[in-house]
């Protein structure tokens, strides 16, 4: 990585005098994905990529060029192309960047058990053991398990003098049972839907999920849902499992607080935000009830949004976005921060691989734990409501104002006890009203990080991984059953 960092430094040095700012990034990425279903292996895919991304600022216009040629000649050619792309665009006026203190050093993410050092058979057998626990009933049309693991090494040099290297490892897994019968189809998953949960960790994270132990329950609930009653409509008290709350937070808080969206930079694709930059300055926007405290923390151990420095060389930081329900800060990069006069970037500039330029992305955005104890305590404290678990569907408008979510399962809460199972639950709301109805958040003992790996944004599209820390939480008077 040292030799590569030297090449990146040389490249940004060569850009001097040809642009207002330059950065050069090298990314080496390795990934494996494993999938099995029933008694068959669906996929054993390995992927390795390496390349350079060069970004320059000329006349207020950005140019970015990506190449897999990591030689000095390749870097120079990419620099020339990036400059040409920037110069071909209409002049954009000044684009100041928030100042940054030049950074040097190396950062390693946690990894106790190197997933790439384990045999494929060992990892596949782990998945087969889980799938075996979901079999045995003809109504299960598909029982599957999957695991992913990645290792990314990055080096960055900027014309501001930053020169850093980083290495990340991620691992995750999940199981899914799909039952069909009488024209109905129902799916249950563990530990969460959409492929399982991923963490900034080694294979120890997968072992800790204990997939095989949960497999029989997952299959049984999928079958039970086939004949379960439809979830009743109405204004209800709901308790969200931490995983569903993580996605709710992701969509209706974290994205809404991306400063580039507030500044209309994503208006044609990802969308804008109901929150304005003026709301940040005023310090008076109530985002939710006083139970709502939200942080953005790139220093959390095990988070997918954790790093030493973001992709503009800004050091990882923890920032309170919402305190006691009131908006305090946004997620920003150097350009968006400068655009509203902030003294420094929020350190949220991230790129998907070497072939995409950095944009504003969330780090680990979390709901801070509350004082409602464990999930069992919260259920016991709820007289009449629904407990919703495992996301099935999500949709929110382009201002992050109105949303609709569906979960795999709902359970009745009656007199502080969990009761019958309901199928096809959904709920909808308006962002500040919904968070305003938050009246209890479980405590640290129920708080956990939930890793999402499918956050899409940017053009060309960028997929980003991020973790959200949440504990189960209760909301009052939520519209249930809109779908």
């Amino acid at each position, binding site marked *: 990585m040292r030799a590569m960092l030297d090449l990146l430094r040389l490249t940004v040095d060569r850009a001097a005098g040809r642009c207002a700012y330059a950065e050069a990034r090298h990314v080496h990425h390795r990934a494996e994905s494993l999938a099995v279903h029933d008694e068959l292996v669906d996929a054993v895919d390995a992927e390795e990529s390496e390349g350079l991304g060069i970004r320059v600022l000329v006349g207020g216009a950005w140019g970015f060029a990506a190449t897999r040629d990591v030689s000095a000649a390749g870097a120079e050619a990419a620099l020339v192309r990036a400059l040409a792309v920037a110069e071909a665009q209409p002049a954009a006026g000044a684009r100041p960047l928030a100042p940054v203190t030049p950074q040097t050093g190396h950062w390693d993410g946690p990894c106790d058990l190197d997933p790439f050092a384990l045999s494929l058979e060992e990892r596949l057998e782990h998945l087969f053991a889980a799938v075996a626990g979901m079999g045995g009933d003809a109504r299960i049309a598909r029982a599957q398990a999957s695991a992913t693991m990645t290792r990314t090494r990055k080096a960055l040099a900027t014309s501001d003098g930053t020169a850093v290297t980083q290495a990340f490892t991620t691992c995750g897994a999940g199981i899914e049972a799909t039952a069909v019968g009488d024209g109905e189809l129902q799916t249950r998953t563990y530990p969460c839907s959409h492929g399982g949960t991923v963490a900034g960790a080694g294979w120890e994270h997968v072992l800790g999920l204990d997939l095989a132990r949960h497999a029989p329950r997952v299959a049984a609930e999928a079958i039970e849902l086939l004949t379960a009653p439809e979830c009743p409509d109405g204004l209800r008290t709901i308790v969200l499992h931490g995983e569903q709350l993580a996605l709710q937070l992701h969509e209706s808080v974290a994205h809404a607080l991306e400063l580039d969206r507030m500044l209309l930079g994503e208006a044609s694709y990802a969308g804008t935000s109901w929150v304005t930059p003026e709301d940040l300055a005023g310090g008076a926007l109530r985002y939710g009830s006083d139970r709502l405290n939200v942080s953005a923390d790139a220093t959390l151990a095990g988070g997918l949004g954790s790093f030493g420095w973001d992709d503009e060389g800004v050091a990882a930081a923890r920032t309170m976005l919402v305190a006691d329900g009131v908006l305090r800060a946004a997620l920003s990069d150097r350009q968006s921060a400068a655009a509203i006069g902030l003294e420094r970037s929020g350190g949220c500039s991230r790129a998907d691989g070497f072939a995409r330029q950095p944009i504003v992305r969330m780090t680990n955005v979390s709901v801070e734990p509350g004082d409602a104890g464990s999930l069992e305590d919260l259920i016991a404290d709820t007289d009449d409501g629904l407990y919703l678990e495992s996301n099935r569907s999500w949709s929110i408008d382009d201002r992050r104002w109105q949303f609709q979510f569906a979960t795999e399962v709902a359970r009745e809460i009656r007199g502080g006890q969990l009761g019958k199972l309901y199928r096809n639950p959904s709920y909808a709301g308006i962002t500040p009203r919904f968070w305003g109805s938050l009246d209890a958040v479980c405590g640290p003992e129920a708080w956990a990080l939930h890793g999402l790996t499918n956050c899409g944004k*940017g053009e060309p599209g960028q997929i980003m991984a991020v973790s959200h820390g949440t504990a189960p939480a209760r909301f009052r008077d939520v519209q249930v059953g809109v779908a």
Partner: protein
Amino acid sequence: MTTARQSPAELAARALAFLDGDGQATVTRERSLMLRYARTAPTQATEIDDTSVHLLAVRNGHVGAATTNVVDDDALRATARRATDAAAAAARAAGGPGDHPGLPQPPTGGYPTHDGWDSATAEADPAPGGAALREVFAVAHEAGLEAFGTWTAGGVETALASTAGVVAVDRVSDAYLKVVCRDARGRTGWDCQAAVGAEALDAGAGARRAAAKVWPEEPAELPPGEYPVVLDADAVGALLEMLGWLAFNGLAHAEGRGALDGRLGTSVAAPAIDLRDEPGHARTWPRAFDLEGVPKRALPLIAGGIAEHVCHDTRSAARAGDGAVSTGHALAPGGDPHGVAPTNLVLAPGDAADVDALVAPIERGIYVTRLWYVNVVHPKQTLLTGTTRDGTFLIEDGRISRPLRDVRFTDSVLRLLAHTEALGATARLVSEAEYYGRRFAVGSVCPALRAQGFRVTG
């Protein structure tokens, strides 16, 4: 060994030589440029030049795959070893034969040809893009609006070589322009153009169409309920793309999970609905073969409202049995674990002259130009939810009368197609041109349509 400037076909042949046993080498080379703009100024610009080599190994019905973008001999040898080791490990872990039926044989009739390659577009020259942005900005300035959007052009070359004897090369270029115009109060209008060649994009015309959808009137609001709707082509395309996965995925169908389970040969849509996957259509981004090297051909999916076929790759066809064969829809070498989907949907046009003609019979309803964040609520029911965006209008007394605040819908695509009353006479290629991962231009050719009972839920 020479590595620089090898053609994708040469690289595929060289990579295949490193595989021990049955397998396939797939090379994709992307050259692309995307320019973004917001508030009538350029914001981001991404130029990509990348080549990846995917190696598939097949052992006793089990597959292993490995991909790299480092193409020297050492890297290719290591990648081949990873693929082979993966297939062998899969075979050992499963303890029995896998479900891959074997690599497809070369087609006896060769591959279809198409006109999907424009060399100038594939060069990804930034100058035409810069000129397009200037033209859009000029129109926006003139209209007193701000412009937001994307211009992109690129080309992808795909080469396959397999130990079964398949040797195939395809080249597809694509160009796309999206314009969103916005006024000071935040009201927006949208237009997009998609084509094989960048010369077909008319930036000024696109900007004018987008600007024309920004109306000065205060938007009306509609309460939840069921309304007659006119969906413009872009909105229709968004729904068809989701339907492609939910209804025509042969793997899900074979496992009883598909929306057409037990419904093939029955009426699932209005008689006016003719939906095909047509990779050779004049206005689509055409394809010569799928990622197993099976030739592309037209496949009727819904004909006269009757569900006709689902799509297959070789693996899903084997799973389905009963004489099913690949229809040329493999989305990955060796088959995608999620199954298959059509990538060149074509909805046959009708006889309504234009949107105004579709709107004319509606006393009170909605005209939708674009949908957003469409997601599946219930797959077997093709039940989706999403919102409208960048141009939603109230229809009153047979005409588009005023802007409408965006609405959420929760409705079944098949139900909408079953209640479709009329289709526009003109079909165009629509796409969101999202390009996550390796560029793969995909869109639907479709007209606007009018349907009854569009379910607004918020």
